[in-house]
């Protein structure tokens, strides 16, 4: 057989070669690491990154801070200025640049754009770069994008865009900006973490996103642009701007395939706004909440297209809906003017209904209205049908439409319908088995809306037509008491409420008769005084005992952590206190309010805003809301009645009084019901406030 190696000499050569090859080239001691070839895959990826960056460089511009805007720090936690140099992407070679509102806040119409260098950076380092004025042409307020137009001398380079919905979690994501260095782009590399984030609007990436690359492109490994990097916040983490996320491993980009169809509209100068529907739900839990329409706002697209309280949403534009979060996912990317096909399951009918609606940019101004019905109290889990199969009336508001229509205490409302929505003379009524359902039906209505009620009492059953009236501006003292003679019932008791993770306990004066009707809750914040002793609480609440017993309202006192001022952190204890109270006695969730005196009053306002799904009313005694607070417009799913109480002791100076009147005006303009109430001595104060808590059940 012919051996490969004929001579022994060649054996030695081969052996030598082999030994050389396998000799460990480990330059551990002494010189620099010599010629070790790095893994080929990593090098190939590195080359791909660099090719992608070089390929996109001519399409990434820098947008200078304009120097025109009044730069305000809008809540960015690490004090990153909202206005600074930013990046932009060429979307039209004749000078169309896409960027984000970070570069161009709403009060800016022009910015300065610096174009990339024409030749290789290193050779022309000192070459002045072409700078142009860019004018704002269009804005997408939903996605926080801005389209600019400038007039370059030569055509700009358009990059390649990924137009299909072709972005996959796990694929490379290359983020490019031009903020650090005008002559070279900067890069951050990561992967696509998820798609459809921010309620369906954004791609999430772990590439380092920050003001360094806002407005810049997000590329795939081939160097094609699949997104524009945008400062969107993680709302569930309580953020309002996206700039807090800069060091976190989370960043967002708007997908190109959503943007490209909008560019023609932006070029025409349109301002694209988020689309609004006008419905509210009974719960704020997006994950578990069933997508049942609770309130329909008068005059909204929902009302106009025939959506009704009680409708269960099953599909939107063909996409199956199982929870409130799904509705948000379907609606949030939509713009005003977009049409929707909503499929609902309505109570009386068995076949699903298909409703077409067009979203609006602005819902008609809304102010709460009322019929004058105050239902009997119900505890929290009131989904069970009561034995009466309807809503039992406790009392009616004086001079209200309900009173004038002859509705009496102990009448039972078994069905209701809102007239303009149904256009029929004898419309089918939705059966109302609980106050929540009735509240949902009536909650979105504005004044002068006609409602049909089916009423049953011990003698007859009849239908009554009533028209809603504006929500009252004054409180009423014609509130019936639960117990006219308080001696007949067990007296109220002081209860200590231990709060987890808090050393000092909260206290409550709870009405006696544990098995009686559910209690209302008034959380009172006095001047901060630190820990409260049982003795102090007993003395403080002594003037409230009668009112608490008479109107069955639990008075709750929360200790401040600091004896000289209320702190934001104290708000945590408020929520926990109410939770602890719920373990001790049955609470009617529609009758919970916060109140406070002076510094405690301002704190009560903060608490009511923080717990705005729990507190239905807030009373400020001798106090005003914090300066420069943004007042949210009233909406049906957020019932807030603001009461300003004044005692004889406080005389406000001129400036304070002007400020105070201004606050009342601002609240009224936002559609929030506001009442003023002079309060006399402690006992009268207790009485009026407890009556007011009972009034919070007003429909």
């Amino acid at each position, binding site marked *: 057989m012919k051996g490969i190696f004929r001579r022994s000499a060649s054996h030695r050569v081969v052996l030598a070669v082999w030994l050389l090859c396998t000799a460990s080239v480990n*330059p551990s001691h002494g010189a620099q690491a010599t010629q070790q070839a790095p893994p080929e895959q990593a090098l190939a990826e590195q080359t791909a990154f660099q090719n992608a960056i070089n390929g996109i460089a001519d399409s990434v511009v820098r947008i200078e801070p304009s120097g025109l805007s009044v730069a305000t720090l809008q809540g960015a936690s690490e004090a990153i200025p909202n206005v600074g140099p930013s990046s932009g992407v060429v979307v039209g070679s004749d000078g169309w640049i896409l960027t984000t509102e970070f570069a161009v806040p709403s009060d800016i119409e022009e910015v300065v754009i610096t174009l990339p260098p024409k030749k290789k950076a290193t050779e022309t380092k000192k070459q002045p770069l072409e700078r142009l004025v860019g004018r704002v042409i269009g804005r997408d307020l939903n996605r926080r994008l801005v389209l600019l137009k400038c007039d370059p001398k030569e055509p700009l380079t358009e990059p390649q865009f990924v137009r299909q919905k072709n972005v996959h979690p796990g694929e490379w994501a290359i983020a490019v900006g031009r903020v650090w260095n005008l002559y070279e*782009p900067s890069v951050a*590399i990561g992967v696509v973490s998820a798609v459809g984030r921010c309620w369906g609007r954004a791609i999430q990436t772990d590439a380092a996103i920050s003001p360094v690359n806002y407005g810049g492109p997000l590329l795939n490994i081939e160097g094609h642009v699949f997104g524009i990097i945008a400062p969107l916040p993680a709302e569930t983490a309580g953020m309002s701007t996206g700039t807090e996320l800069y060091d976190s491993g989370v960043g967002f980009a708007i997908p190109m395939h959503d943007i490209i169809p909008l560019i023609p509209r932006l070029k025409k100068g349109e301002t694209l706004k988020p689309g609004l529907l006008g419905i509210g739900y009974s719960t704020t839990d997006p994950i578990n909440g069933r997508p049942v329409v609770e309130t329909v706002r008068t005059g909204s697209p929902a009302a106009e297209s025939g959506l009704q309280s009680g409708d269960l949403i099953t599909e939107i534009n063909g996409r199956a809906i199982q929870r409130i979060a799904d509705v948000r996912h379907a609606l949030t990317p939509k713009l005003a003017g977009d049409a929707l096909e909503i499929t609902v399951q309505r109570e009386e009918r068995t076949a699903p209904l298909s409703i077409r609606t067009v979203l609006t940019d602005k819902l008609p101004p809304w102010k709460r209205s009322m019929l004058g019905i105050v239902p009997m109290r119900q505890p929290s889990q009131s989904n069970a049908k009561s034995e009466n199969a309807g809503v039992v009336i406790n009392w009616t508001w004086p001079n209200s439409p309900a009173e004038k229509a002859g509705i009496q205490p102990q009448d039972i409302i078994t069905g209701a319908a809102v007239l303009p929505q149904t256009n029929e003379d004898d419309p089918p009524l939705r059966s109302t088995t609980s106050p929540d359902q009735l509240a949902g039906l009536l909650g979105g209505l504005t004044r002068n809306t006609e409602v049909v009620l089916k009423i049953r009492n011990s003698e007859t059953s009849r239908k009554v037509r009533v028209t809603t009236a504006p929500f009252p501006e004054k409180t009423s003292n014609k509130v019936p008491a639960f117990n006219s003679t308080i001696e007949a019932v067990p007296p109220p008791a002081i209860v200590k409420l231990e709060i987890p993770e808090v050393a000092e306990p909260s206290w409550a004066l709870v009405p006696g008769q544990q098995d009686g009707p559910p209690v209302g809750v008034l959380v009172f914040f006095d001047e901060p005084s630190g820990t409260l002793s049982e003795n102090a609480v007993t003395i403080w609440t002594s003037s409230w005992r009668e009112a608490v017993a008479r109107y069955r309202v639990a008075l709750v006192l929360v200790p401040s952590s600091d004896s000289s001022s209320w702190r934001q952190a104290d708000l945590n204890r408020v929520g926990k206190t109410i939770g602890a109270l719920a373990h001790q006695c049955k609470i009617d969730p529609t009758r919970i309010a916060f109140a406070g005196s002076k510094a405690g009053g301002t704190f009560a306002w903060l608490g009511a805003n923080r717990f705005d799904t729990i507190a239905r009313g807030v009373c400020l005694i001798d106090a005003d809301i914090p300066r420069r607070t943004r007042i949210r417009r009233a909406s049906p799913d957020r019932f807030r009645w603001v009461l300003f109480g004044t005692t004889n002791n406080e005389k406000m100076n001129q400036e304070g009084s002007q400020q105070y009147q201004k606050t009342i005006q601002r609240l009224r303009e936002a559609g929030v019901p506001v009442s003023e109430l002079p309060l006399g001595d402690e006992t009268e104060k207790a009485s009026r406030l407890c009556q007011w808590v009972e009034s919070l059940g007003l429909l």
Partner: protein
Amino acid sequence: MTTRTQHATSACSRILRLVISLTVSGLALYPIPVLGGDITAVSVDAASRVVKLYGAGGIRGLESYQTGILVSSSGHILTVLSTAIDSEAIDCVLDDGRRYTASLVGADLHRELAVLKIEGINLPYFKISADSPRQAIGTRVLALSNLFGVAVGDERVSIQHGVVAAHVPLRARRGSHEAAYRGDVYILDCTTNNPGSPGGCLINWQGDCIGMLGKELRSAENATWLSYAIPTNELALSLEAILSERNDQPPVDERRASNFDIRSLGLELVPDLLNLTPPFVEAIVPDTQAAEAGLRTDDLIVAVGNRTVTSQRGLRHELSYLIPGDPIQLNIIRNGRIVLIDLGVVPSVTEPRGKGEK
């Protein structure tokens, strides 16, 4: 050949073929540090040249531990200048647990670097060369440092991966302290702004030391925390200066040497009475550069190049960075619109010409 020799020969060939084929297949399965390098080997090898340093600092949130790079076989260590280093005895621990006491050899106040010395022989080290090439954007890198002090005793320093994000001149600060070094650095796409990271080593995937991790600073431009590294060629200059005991002065910010006064170009600003008087143009002298460039009375200067100015003092500050030959580009606001003004270049002889009568 006789049968015996033939047998011997063929036996040898068979053995050799077997060995070679085993070797080749072995290479295909296990990356031996010869073909298709192993990143583990690269980083382990680099880590043997990186040391953990512990000083007696630790006041007011300034960490007393950091990282250093061995730069000579006898034990010179390059690291960042910090309060931890500024103590009598510094503990130095190698990746195999060997402990040394290090002493300060010298410091470079300009680049905020220091050289320490331990008594060692035949230690693994990185050769720091002034010819080290500039790394392109997107180059994959590994950062080796003792971030958060998690490596203790004989543990190897930690390895992070990332890429070179950008090249910029350093403009950074921490609190009110502004960083002295204003030369070029690599901005890293890798979170190296951590306690313990300063002084760490930046390598590429070939195992070359390409830079040293910098201090925990914020960008003076956009207030983000900076992850940056000083390139090797700068490290080489610093090392050489310290070892030769030369007092390496910073290139005396020639940028500030210019006493260029914009009024020499023919524009008068409104009187600077208040601390924050905005730079409104009061008058333009005819037949001057300012007039030719199209400036007019009541124009408001809002930026020089891409640097925003909001006051005359700010304007003077930004102009002081211009050196002869630099272009003078202003953004002005006229009647609510932005106008871009090109005022030519900074003259080489700063002689006021055409100065108005004032």
